[in-house]
């Protein structure tokens, strides 16, 4: 079995999570080759073949051209699987590649299943489905964190790769993350607000628990999107990645993007009405309760 792994670059550097592709390949027991649209500075510690397309010519984000580059490597390598990370780059490019090659795509794979199947989440991570693609090659995207990052070691054999065509998207540049508000990465205790608190007016109740615990207040994405709290408070893949000694998740169901940003916390308490919420999978303690009843009672007892 052979895998073509698609690395991901930003501003000339290979993004760290690209090494999870090697972790997946190792579990699958497969041969590998890699494609990177980047520069010499983006080469991984890997002894296999790396097809390198020049980011100066093809851009770091130019999916109309990148899909042609993937196609060109697929014609040379004839892989069984073309593997991306399930990221803003991967979920954008993978369906274009699958459409171009007229082959199946399976999104956000979390595990290999028996008989050539793949396990993937559904229903906002609450459930799992197993699916089987029909035909090859198969385009896959992998959920971040589902497979361990692995640096195979060695020096790659670099093969230049080119493709013809016009891109229809004009990339105008990156905009750095907004960094206002508190630096949650340094907090020892974080009490985070989720949609389960019900309304913006309830946030002071959660903030009071944070105060009593000597911690900071964080937020889940829906709370920021609804304008209840600033983007600077957001914990997760698109916000801050935190690892306090104690993380208290108040009314947070636990979207994968949130879990990735807080699951390395020392001790995790989740307060949620829904016992089946995905946050339960990473919590040390799950309090099954209405957050607006439980939190004031907890704060009152702690303040004594």
């Amino acid at each position, binding site marked *: 079995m052979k895998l073509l792994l698609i690395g991901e670059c*930003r501003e000339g550097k290979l993004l760290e999570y690209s090494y999870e592709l090697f972790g997946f390949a190792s579990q699958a027991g497969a041969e590998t080759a890699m494609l990177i649209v980047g520069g010499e500075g983006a080469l991984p510690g890997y002894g296999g073949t790396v097809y390198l397309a020049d980011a100066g010519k093809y851009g770091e984000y130019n999916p109309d051209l990148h899909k042609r580059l993937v196609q060109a490597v697929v014609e040379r390598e004839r892989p069984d699987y073309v593997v991306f990370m399930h990221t*803003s780059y991967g979920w954008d490019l993978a369906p274009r590649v699958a459409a171009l090659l007229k082959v199946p795509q399976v999104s956000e794979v979390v595990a290999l299943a028996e008989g050539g199947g793949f396990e993937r989440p559904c229903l906002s991570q609450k459930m799992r489905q197993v699916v089987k693609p029909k035909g090859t090659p198969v385009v896959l995207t992998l959920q971040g964190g589902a497979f361990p990052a692995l640096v195979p070691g060695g020096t790659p054999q670099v093969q230049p790769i080119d493709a013809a065509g016009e891109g229809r998207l004009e990339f105008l540049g990156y905009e750095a993350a907004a960094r206002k508000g508190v630096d949650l990465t340094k907090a020892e205790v974080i009490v985070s607000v989720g949609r389960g608190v019900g309304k913006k007016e309830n946030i002071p109740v959660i903030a009071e628990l944070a105060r009593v615990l000597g911690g900071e207040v964080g937020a889940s994405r829906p709370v920021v999107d609804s304008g209840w709290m600033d983007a600077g408070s957001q914990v997760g893949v698109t916000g801050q990645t935190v690892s306090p000694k104690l993380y208290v998740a108040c009314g947070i169901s636990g979207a994968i993007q949130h879990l990735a940003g807080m699951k390395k916390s020392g001790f995790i308490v*989740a307060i949620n009405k829904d016992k089946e919420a995905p946050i339960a999978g990473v919590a040390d303690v799950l309090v099954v309760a209405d957050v607006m009843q439980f939190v004031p009672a907890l704060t009152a007892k702690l303040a004594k």
Partner: protein
Amino acid sequence: MKILVCIKQVPDMESRFKPDASGVWYAETDLAFRVNEYDEYAIEQAVLLKEQLGGEPEVTVLSIGADRVVEAIKKGLSMGGDRGVHVQDAAAHLKDSWQVASIIAAYAAGEGFDLILTGLQSQDRGSAQVGVTVAELLDYACATTVVGFGYADGTVTVKRELEGGVKGTVRLKTPAVVTCQLGLNQPRYPTLPNIMKAKKKEVRVIPVAELLHQDQRVAPCEFRAPAKKGSAVVLEGELADQVDRLIGILKDKTAVLR
């Protein structure tokens, strides 16, 4: 200008899910359905653009599924859509993302839409494939994961949300497909007069057989709860008792409480 908004009706995510008779997807019994959250941003963006252009664009709201999805279409119309398209398919859940995209593309091919808006993904399947694949099939430009949107003279300028809080700005020309990420705008609540008006708007019904000409590429074969990896201590019961037990655990297991 013609705008198409593709929406899906999905179950409330706080529900408890059980396999259906086929064993490959969820049973619909006892579930409440609503508009896929990501698609609400797509509807709102279409209506905002219609307002920006003085009401000139015509906004079509499309959904595929059983008769229940007409409720979702009506919501889109009450938010400001002009007309609905219901692709009638009682077995929509058994189509893969490729087939769903092919159905939408087969409908849109003859309609000359300038802009197609949809959610980044559905909350139930979550493949994030359909929008991009529609663009590929129609040979439209496509930008995904959009948290900022501007339009002027046939050019769309978007901000894409990348990892680590970084955004990437991208410009593309219509015809185009744009997939909407959470937080793109503030989806409006339909007003009562607009809900009444929506009842009178046209919803065209098209049987799926007229639009589906592609075979499945990915077969679903199992549906279940994730293996329990959680070692969480679960505290249930009386509130006061829960509080005492949690404080006991925190004193025992963390250095935070002294």
